[in-house]
Structure formats: C-alpha cells, structure tokens
C-alpha cells in the first residue's frame, strides 16, 4: 500500500513516464484518496511546466551577436569552398 511518504518519488517517476502500469494505478488510487498528495502531484507538475516554459528571451544584443557570428562563419565557409 502506497504511503504519502512514497508519493514524491513515485510522482517524479510518473513525470518521466518511468512508472510501471501497476505503480501508476497505485499512485492514481492514492491521489484520489488523499487531498494532500493530490495537491502535491498537481503542483509538482505545475512547477515542472513552469521551469520548462519560463520566458527568458535573449536580449537583442545577444541575438545580434549570435546572428553575426553565424553569418560570418557562413561567409567564411562559402569563400573557402570557392
């Protein structure tokens, strides 16, 4: 029988699709019964999504520097090919 103490580790495996079907069912059943673990699972998933998708656009200077280096390299490669 799954205990609340086991849920964070099982939830982590579930986020990576690393949980067997039997353990997935046990986790789902426990979460259905326990509001604290239900909240844990929901918010753990939310945090993972937030970290993955957090907006952190590069500055225009950074973009321009990268693009300039790419263009310079492409020009250099083309002239060497000729």
């Amino acid at each position, binding site marked *: 029988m799954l*205990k*609340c*103490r*086991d849920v*964070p*580790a099982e939830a*982590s*495996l579930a*986020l*990576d*699709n*690393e949980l067997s079907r039997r353990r997935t069912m046990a986790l789902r059943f426990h979460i259905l019964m326990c509001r*604290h*673990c239900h*909240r*844990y699972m929901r*918010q*753990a998933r*939310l*945090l*993972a*999504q*937030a*970290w*993955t*998708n*957090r*907006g*952190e*656009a*590069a500055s225009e200077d*950074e*973009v321009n*520097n*990268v*693009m300039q*280096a*790419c263009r310079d*390299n*492409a020009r250099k*490669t083309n002239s060497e090919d000729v």
Partner: protein
Amino acid sequence: MNEAKETTFADLVRTHHRALIAIAVPIVGHSEAEEVVQNAWIKAYRAWGNFRGDAAPRSWLTRIVINEARMQLRARKREAFFSEIDADASPDVLMDRFNADGHWQHAPGDWGTENPAELLESETLKGCLERLLNAMTDKQRGVYELRERGGLSFEEVCQNLGVSASNARVLLHRTRSALFQLVDHYQETGEC
C-alpha cells in the same frame, strides 16, 4: 539563408539562447558555456535548412549543445564529470515533512494558481530557484536541466551524460523535491 529563414532563426535564438546556456553550464562550467552555445548556434545555422521539425526545436538544439560541449571537453583534455554520481550529496528534503507512519505532517500549501507562467512571475522566487540549482553539484543540475529545460527523454539524459538510470532517477527526484520545498516555503512565507 533567405530573409524569412533568417528572421525565423533569430526568433529561435531569442527563445532558446539563455536556456541553452543553462544547459551547457553544468557540463563545461560558466566560463565556457557561452562559447559552447555560440559554436552550437553556428552548427545549427548551417543545418537549419535541413531541420524537418521531427523533434522539438529545443531538443534538437540541446543535442547540438551537448555535442559541442563534449568536443570542448575533449579539446581541453578534460573528462566529463558525470562519471560518478554522489546521490547522497543532496538529501531528500521532503522526508522531514512526513510523520513516522508515513502521512504528511506538514502538507503542501495551496499555491493559488494553475498557470505555470504565473507561478514564476516573482523575480525573487526565480532568483532563489536559480541559486538553489547553482548550489547543487554539476551532475545533479545537469540531469535536471537536460530533462526539464532541454526536453530530452529520460533515456537520452542517461545516455548523453553517462549516468545510470538508477542514479538519474534519484537525482531528478531530489532536485524536484528541493525545488518544490523552496516554492512551497515561498508561497507560505513570502521568503526563500
């Protein structure tokens, strides 16, 4: 590359550049991460015409960054530091929140949002999370960044970093627990 493709590629740089640096840091260190990512962009620029979109752009770029980082390590005759994992280095911080019979003693609070962007709106919280990750070992942070920000599958993370599946599971779980604990504490107290 024509103008439309250049614009699309510049958008790609704008969206992914900083995340790629965060991914490179645990592999080659802060001082070389920017150089590695710059070289990766040059490779990506050359290959952009052939990118068919089979993988998500972030995953495609992450793989290029990992290859560049490996080349950098080889060039510097440095060994990748993912050869051994000290899973005991970072304890499971959530274990203190359960009582002896395995139930929650200090249950998670309600964070009051279902929106991922809203959760990390606070610059203070984002800074605290960054500092927490920076304080972790390179191995622990590397596994987490490749999985969450790099968008690589669990198998790819293990394969690329030479980490056993059992160690990667432990490291990912402990990192997630530590981040969860920090956010939960911040939501409860307004402090990190």
